[in-house]
């Protein structure tokens, strides 16, 4: 029962998310099975919930890959600088006037920013000695802070509605999602998940350390590069479209490992389901809790994610051995 609970919950929460909103939908069930029949349902609510599903799955997978590739329980897109890099890449592209938030161009720039920022973190963490968990996290936090500050400065100096607000880039929002945005995030989610699937056996072996992974036949730099590309696509696509949503990349993989064990190929599907569940639930709370206003979704995910982080450090039988 424990193993199918996330999938059942996801179906249930998705229906609640589609049903629930500021406007009551008349004849909900018949509208649901007649595509295009109800504008609020088909133009606003279903695209938003679909985006929440894709973004949640993407961020969760990005966290799984980050933790596997770094062999580090704390690695996740926002700690490695990936999220901030994606935000900066998108903001810079939008401010030049060539792309709009949510477009394929913005997603490409977000993914590129994510890749550059994460590569910078790895490069700096590796500069003086072998890559260690400690240096990776410290450098990641510093890179993340620097890029986040740059996003804040740019957003404050150039006030343009289409570049979104500091709050959007720091806490995320699915409020402005349209049907057109779904194509881009679907592409990055599918590509990222496909690479994650390919690289997942190598991630299992990387948990034994770089040296043992190499002895078992893993080309460590190549596997890590592939993981980095998948991570950047997944986080870049999600962040460039809905902003930063904290803790999904951290919480979802840990919940999945707790239920399903550590094998990465098995975890890809389950982590995506749990990530989707968390974001759909958080978004539903964000838009229902203080109607007619809306809370930033990142506030809700932080409320869930922070206790997971504390549990991770304090739990005795945790699947990760924390030194």
């Amino acid at each position: 029962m424990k193993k199918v609970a996330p999938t059942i919950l996801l179906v249930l929460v998705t229906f609640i998310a589609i049903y629930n909103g500021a406007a009551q939908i008349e004849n909900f069930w018949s509208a649901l099975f007649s595509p295009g029949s109800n504008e609020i349902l088909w133009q606003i609510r279903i695209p938003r919930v679909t985006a929440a599903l894709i973004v949640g799955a993407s961020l969760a997978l990005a966290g799984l890959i980050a933790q596997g590739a770094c062999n580090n329980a704390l690695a996740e897109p926002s700690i490695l600088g990936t999220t901030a890099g994606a935000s900066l890449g998108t903001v810079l592209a939008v401010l030049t006037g060539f792309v709009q938030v949510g477009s394929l161009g913005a997603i490409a720039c977000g993914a590129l920013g994510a890749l550059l920022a994460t590569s910078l973190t790895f490069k700096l963490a590796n500069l003086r000695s072998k890559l260690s968990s400690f240096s990776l996290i410290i450098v990641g936090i510093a890179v993340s802070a620097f890029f986040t500050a740059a996003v804040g400065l740019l957003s404050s100096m150039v006030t343009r509605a289409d570049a979104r607000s500091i709050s959007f880039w720091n806490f995320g929002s699915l409020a402005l999602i349209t049907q057109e945005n779904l194509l881009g995030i679907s592409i990055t989610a599918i590509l990222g998940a496909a690479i994650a699937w390919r690289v997942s056996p190598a991630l299992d072996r990387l948990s034994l350390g770089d040296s043992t992974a190499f002895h078992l036949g893993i080309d460590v730099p190549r596997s890590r590069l592939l993981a980095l590309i998948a991570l950047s696509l997944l986080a870049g696509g999600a962040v460039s479209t809905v902003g930063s949503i904290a803790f999904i990349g951290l919480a979802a993989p840990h919940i999945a490992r707790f239920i399903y064990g550590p094998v990465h190929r098995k975890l890809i599907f389950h982590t995506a389901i749990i990530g989707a569940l968390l974001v759909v639930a958080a978004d539903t709370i964000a838009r229902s809790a203080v109607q007619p206003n809306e809370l930033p979704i990142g506030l809700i995910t932080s409320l869930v994610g922070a206790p997971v982080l504390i549990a991770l450090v304090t739990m005795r039988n945790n699947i990760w051995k924390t030194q």
Partner: protein
Amino acid sequence: MISINKISIDLGSKQIITDYSDQIPGASITVILGPNGSGKSTLLNAMAGDIKPTKGTITIDDTDPALTPASQLSKLRAMAIQNQNYTLGFTVKQIIEMAGDSKEIIEALALTELSNRQVTTLSGGEAQRVSIATAIAQKTPVLLLDEPLAAQDIENRERIIKLLQKLAVSGTTVVLVAHSSESELIWADKVIKQA
């Protein structure tokens, strides 16, 4: 056979191995002895392809491990490192199966009762046996082991030595680093002393 041809290895500014040559016969057990810091593990790492000698070459049956892709090398040699640190809670069986078939080696190294335990909960000696079992499960012609006997009790030391002898008889070239005195190594075919 492993050929070591006039190798020198520098780590940082320190020269660890200087102009060293040797031949390690196939289907045998070779033990590398020496005091701490004498370069025993460095020599083993160079044979495994982890380190490229600054000068000279090492070949395993005419293949230079430092120039061979990881996937190809993993069919030629297996290695168990010293102090394997497991961070993620795979079971003992899952870890060994990352290298190959687990059944036989789990029995041979008395790991049956531990096979479903998470590796993160094992003692140092148990974790070391899992590391040895993983290397053996790769079924390669060359087996390199860094201090495999260090954290073992007498019973497990004997168990491991017997298994290595059996592997050598069946054609495996076994090279290991140890801290024993030379007189104890009656089971070794060759001893290399690093100064």
